[in-house]
């Protein structure tokens, strides 16, 4: 009972991360479902008392990367991503949030994952490194590049909105 309750308690965070990672609610829940099924099938590999959340994020990372590799989904890496239709700003907070969701999808996947695990899910750098199976130095450099890239993307959309308003 204990173990299952622990997994259920993690579902909201898994959903939040997957939503931000994929940018699509239905696809995100598919990813969460795959993650839960995979986790239960490998339950004996989880050491009780170790960090369940980081372990679940690691499973999700592997599934997500495999999906992309197998070409199930198209991921955009460059600046040739389709642009969002321009809209007049309505309410600044909603606009900011929408811009962010769109900008995230234009970050390379490995930068997006680090940005979200650290900035949204608040994993420590060590936990993020473990979840992604990379050295901590790689986490730091991806974080640095991701933040710079996101800043540039958001500055770009801001400029675009200003132009529209004028």
């Amino acid at each position, binding site marked *: *009972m*204990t173990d*299952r*309750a622990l*997994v*259920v*308690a993690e*579902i*909201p*965070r898994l*959903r*939040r991360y997957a*939503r*931000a990672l994929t940018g699509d*609610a239905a696809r995100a*829940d598919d990813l*969460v*479902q795959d993650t*839960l*099924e995979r986790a*239960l*099938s490998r339950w004996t590999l989880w050491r009780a008392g170790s960090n369940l959340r980081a372990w679940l994020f690691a499973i999700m990372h592997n599934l997500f990367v495999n999906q992309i590799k197998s070409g199930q989904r198209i991921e955009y890496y460059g600046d040739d991503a389709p642009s969002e239709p321009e809209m007049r700003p309505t309410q600044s*907070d*909603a606009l*900011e*949030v*929408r811009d*962010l*969701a769109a900008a995230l999808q234009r970050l390379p996947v490995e930068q997006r994952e680090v*940005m*979200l695990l*650290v*900035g*949204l899910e608040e994993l*420590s*750098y060590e936990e993020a490194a473990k979840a992604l199976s990379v050295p901590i130095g790689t986490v*730091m450099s991806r*974080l*640095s590049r991701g*933040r710079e890239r*996101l*800043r540039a993307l958001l500055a770009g959309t801001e400029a675009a909105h200003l132009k529209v308003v004028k």
Partner: protein
Amino acid sequence: MIERPLSEQELHAFADDRLESGRRLDLEAALEERPDLAQQVAAWRNQNQLLHRAFDAVLDEPIPARLIDAARAKPESGALRLAAAVAWLAVGGVIGFVVRGHYASQRVELHAALPRQAAIAHAVFAAEVRHPVEVGADQEAHLAAWLSKRLGTPVKPPQLSSVGFELVGGRLLPGDQGPVAQFMYQDTRGQRLTLYVRADAEDSRETAFRYAQEDKVGVFYWLDGKLGYALSGELAKDDLLRVATAVYRQLNP
């Protein structure tokens, strides 16, 4: 100040609040001399805040039943009971989910979210045999001090022995806006109640008692300024109201 060069790695750790306090103070001082770096750090922090604003609403959505099912592929008896309770809650929230849409960026009304979150937290932890609380009633003073610090406002578990319930302890939970406290009580028959306390209402309001029934879990909830309370238990409504009234009287003597 310790003269150590500022590495970019440390600036990120500073922005993410991952530095130990001594070094954090060093960086705070150093950044006063470097407005360019201070601006960069502020921009990174702003990105983290934006991420929360954009996606924290997901935490508040009811969990789709298919995900609950996936998490209990090989249910044990207790898990089955819990999962059934939580799945029921998910179904109950479907209408709200559809109406709010997938990317609802507006805040969910506190009075709609409060009883559901409290009932889920109750279903998860009241069934817990070995670790129902993080800090036990034997450390009550520590419990109150710790939760007050995390919620940013004084909270303390009411004494409910007059209505037959003794404090088991409490725990910290993630709410949609920040930390939330849960106190657990138990009577001599092992019947459990939980009091869920959140301190993050944006506008100060006061409400009368409201009642919500989430499967077998009844919830009395009310707002008091920036605090929201929800008392959950599998009790008859009248019995639960008796306890809720006792809680309310102690909080508002």
